[in-house]
C-alpha cells in the first residue's frame, strides 16, 4: 500500500530488550524484598557494593540471599541501557546502515569504558 510505514525489526528488538530488562530487574528486586521480608536473620549491608561479577555468580549458583537478589535486580536495571545500545547496533547492521552501526558501537564503547573504569 502506498505510504504504508514499513515495520523494521530494529524497533521490535529494542522494545523487547527494554521490556526484558525492566521486567527481569523488577522481578529480582521484588524477589529480594520478599526474601528480606521473610528472613528471620538480620540483613547487614556489605561494607561496599559487591562487584557485578560476584553478584551474578552468586545468583547463578542458586543464591537466594535477599541482598544478592536486590543487587542483581539493580545491576540488571543498570545494564539494560547497555543491552539496548548493543541491540541498536545489531539492528542498524541488519539494515546495512554502517554509519549508525558505528555510532551505536561508539556509544557502547563509552558506556563500557565507564563501567570498567568504575569497577577497576
Amino acid at each position: 500500500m502506498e505510504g504504508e510505514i514499513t515495520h523494521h525489526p530494529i524497533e521490535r528488538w529494542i522494545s523487547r530488550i527494554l521490556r526484558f530488562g525492566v521486567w527481569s530487574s523488577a522481578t529480582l528486586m521484588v524477589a529480594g524484598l520478599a526474601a528480606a521480608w521473610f528472613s528471620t536473620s538480620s540483613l547487614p549491608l556489605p561494607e561496599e557494593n559487591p562487584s557485578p561479577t560476584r553478584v551474578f555468580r552468586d545468583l547463578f549458583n542458586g543464591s537466594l540471599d535477599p541482598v544478592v537478589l536486590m543487587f542483581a535486580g539493580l545491576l540488571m536495571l543498570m545494564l539494560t541501557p547497555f543491552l539496548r545500545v548493543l541491540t541498536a547496533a545489531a539492528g542498524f547492521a541488519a539494515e546495512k546502515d554502517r554509519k549508525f552501526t558505528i555510532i551505536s558501537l561508539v556509544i557502547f564503547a563509552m558506556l563500557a569504558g565507564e563501567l570498567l573504569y568504575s569497577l577497576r
Partner: protein
Amino acid sequence: MTVESFLLLVAGGGIAGTIGALLGLGGGVFLVPFLSLVFDLPMHQAVATSILAVIATSSAGAAMNVERRVVNLRLGMVLEISTVIGAILGGITANMLSGQTLSRVFASLLIIVAFLMIWRIRHLRLGHTPPEDGLFPATFKDESTGETIAYASKRVPLVSLIALVAGNISGLLGVGGGIFKVPAMNILAGVPIKAATATSNFMIGVTAAASAFIYFSHGHINPFIACPAVLGVLAGSFLGVNINRRIKGGALTWIFAIVLLAISVRMFTR
C-alpha cells in the same frame, strides 16, 4: 527497615513517578528532594537512587514508544554521544563534591526547572521542520489525531551541545535532563513535541546509565532504599501516563512549579 519506611519509600517513589509522567519529566526532580528531606538520606545516595529510577522509567516508556515508532532513533543515537560524555563527567564531578554542595546545586536546578516548566507552556512549537529541510527524517502516527507526521531535525550541533549540558546535569544531580532536551529538540530542531518527548525519554536511560556505575563503585547504592523507590517510581509512571490522557496540564504545571520553588528554598536552608 521498618514496614512504615518501606511503604513510605514506595509511596514517595510512586508520587514522584506519577508527577513526572504528568508533567513530562522524569521523577528525579521530586525523588531526590524526597529522599534527602524526608528520609534524610545523604545527597549522593539520593542522587544514585534517582539515577536508577530514571533508568527504570526511561526503559519502560521507551519500550512502548519505540514500538509505536514515535522515537526518532537516529536523532536519539546521535544526541546520545554528547549526552553520555556529559553524564560521565557529571558523575565523576559529583563524587568530588560534598553532600552540602551537591544539595545547593540541586536546589539551584529546581529554580531553573520551575521556570522552564512555565516557559515551555507558552513557547512550545506547534509546527515542525519539513523532512526535506533537515537531518534524520522520520515519520510517526499521532494517535490523538490519526495524522501521520513527517519531519526532520535542524541545528543538530546546537542541540547536541545542549544534550551535553543536560547529560552533565543528569550525572551530577540524578535527574533525566529531559527538561532541557525536549525544548531543545522541539524549538531549535523543529521536532514535533510528541516525538521530542518520546526521543528524550528514550535517551535519558542511557544518559543515567552512563553515570550509574560511578555511583555504584563509590558505594552510594543502598538496595533497601533503591529497590522500593525504583519499584514505586515504575508504578507511578504507568499511572501518570494513564492519568495524563484525561487532564489538562496547564494548571498542574503551575502548581508543581510553585512546589519545586518551595522545595528549593527548603534545600537551600537545611
